[in-house]
């Protein structure tokens, strides 16, 4: 994770296009300015960043399924539950499953585990044409970095 750059996903463990599932790894840094404020003397991952982590796993799932043809943007979060605190240095397993492929949107069920449940939520993402060509290239580079091979991507 590079919290200050909002890069939450480090590696894709498994992407199964047939079932619409993705499993990713996210390594919480040992130090970050985020932990200086959240909280002094008791550093834990902010819940909103755990939601963002689930949203990014969901986004990579959608990018994998659509072959980087359109960009998912986080639009909604329901039923979010945080079941335990996450400390610096934690290794997280992030899972997302496609619950619905709608017209211009997708819904996923996502969760994070670390030797047991950490958090889970139902997420909605708008799926739109890429608004800028450089974003396509950035995402193409990102999926390569984390080891995701999108459907139809033979490169």
């Amino acid at each position, binding site marked *: 994770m590079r919290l200050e750059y909002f890069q939450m996903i480090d590696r894709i463990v498994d992407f199964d296009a047939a079932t619409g599932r993705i499993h990713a790894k996210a390594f919480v840094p040992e130090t970050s300015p985020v932990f200086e404020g959240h909280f002094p003397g008791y550093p834990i991952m902010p819940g909103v960043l755990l939601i963002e982590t689930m949203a990014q796993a969901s986004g990579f799932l959608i990018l994998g399924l659509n072959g980087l043809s359109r960009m998912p943007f986080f639009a909604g979060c329901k039923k979010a539950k945080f079941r335990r605190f996450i400390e610096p240095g934690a290794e997280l397993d992030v899972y997302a499953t496609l619950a619905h492929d709608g017209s211009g*949107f997708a819904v996923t069920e996502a969760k994070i585990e670390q030797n047991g449940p950490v958090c889970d939520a139902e997420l*909605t993402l708008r799926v739109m044409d890429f608004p800028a060509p450089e974003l396509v290239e950035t995402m193409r580079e990102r999926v390569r970095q984390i080891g995701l091979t999108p459907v139809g991507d033979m490169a």
Partner: protein
Amino acid sequence: MSSTFDVVADVIAQTSEIPREKITPESHAIDDLGIDSLDFLDIVFALDKKFGIKIPLEQWTQEVNAGKASVEEYFLLKNLCAHIDDLVAKKNA
């Protein structure tokens, strides 16, 4: 068996905070009920699941934005229900 309108109205009432009795076939989803685009995604998600269809929301929005269809064509509830019936019929054909 519930009519398409009853299902749609129930979904809208459950998804938004609009009292069920205020929702009629003549209601305009945007102008009368004040449903915004994000709430409408939730409604479409629920309707897609209930009817086993994929409401072509993007296409409808593009048609409205391009002036090829009126807003009422898709967002007046009786018209929305008619389009849902068409989509269900096509699915079952």
